[in-house]
């Protein structure tokens, strides 16, 4: 007896082929995602004693993403930490103004693929500025001191 889910083999193969088409052609892994993910995890100075936490970009991220190409403000957060980042073009490079909430004199590092990294320390109000930052696939790290040391890292964003 046939059950309701039985399809003829030919029909089943047809729909499986449609699914293959959908997976491979209509919704492929984005070009460069593998490389961006490899860059994101290629973090130097990972200390086994320091907790590593992945931050999330807030939803307005596409503002400065690949698609708009326009600078603006983006936010990332993890746990109780929120970091607002304002990006301004300065010629070929850019200036990054940031604000950590809650404030703390934490280390901030900006890694740009193929361009090394730039680091600074936030002031007691949680503000930090990085100038002459190259453009490209970018990751931000916050090295938090005080209490249990932890490093917050973001997924990459194309700035």
């Amino acid at each position: 007896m046939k059950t309701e889910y039985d399809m003829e083999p030919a029909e089943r193969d047809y729909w499986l082929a449609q699914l293959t088409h959908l997976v491979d052609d209509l919704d492929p892994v984005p070009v460069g995602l593998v490389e961006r993910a490899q860059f994101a995890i290629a973090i130097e100075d990972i200390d086994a004693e320091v907790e590593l936490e992945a931050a999330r970009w807030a939803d307005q991220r596409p503002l400065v993403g690949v698609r708009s190409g326009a600078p603006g403000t983006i936010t990332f957060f993890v746990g109780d930490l929120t970091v607002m980042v304002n990006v301004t073009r300065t010629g070929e490079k850019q200036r990054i103004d940031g604000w950590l909430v809650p404030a703390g004199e934490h280390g901030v590092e900006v890694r740009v693929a193929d361009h090394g990294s730039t680091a600074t320390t936030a002031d007691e109000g949680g503000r930090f500025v990085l100038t002459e930052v190259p453009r490209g696939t970018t990751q931000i790290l916050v090295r938090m001191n005080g209490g249990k040391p932890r490093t917050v890292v973001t997924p990459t964003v194309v700035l």
Partner: protein
Amino acid sequence: MGAVTELRTVKTDPPWEGLEGSDRHAACMIAAREGHKGALDVLVAELTPLVWHVARGTGLDRSAAEDVVQTVWLALLRHVDRLAEPRALVGWLITTARREANRTRQRGNGQVELLPEVAEHQLSTEPMPEAEVLRDERDRKLWSAFRRLPARCQELLRLTVLAGRAEYRIVAERMGMPHGSIGPTRGRCLNSLRDLYGTRDQDGD
């Protein structure tokens, strides 16, 4: 197992060379723990499609799914010394991707407090990038039908495609998908896809 007989080979080949499936994943994980640069890159290159399709299967847009993929790999970096069973990596990735994707979806729009100047500039619903590839009428119908399936079906059918490939046989094992058999659950999802394909999306096309 996978005994290498020539010492010459031992010196030059990475430890996962010639291994497949969970053996290969375990060898990469162990090499990564020992500080072998490139071991995690191998896993990222080979298993990103799996993580991607799990994230997309939950209904996230492509941009959010990209973040989920990267967050999952960052989580692996964090857990590389703690994952008790390196052979179970595929299961761990699927679970972690689902959890992270659902967290992203639940957060949704507006949950994050926006600065007024940011909110002001916030884009309205961005066209899905996949619209660019949906030029063909049949592709549009297929995509529209697929997106109306329950999330569980969408993930299952995406993984069915991957699991049918030699390099993802481990996914089939992990998900209990015997080779050459579709089984009742996937059969029902496939039926639903066919039935939805014949009906129009409410939004029209």
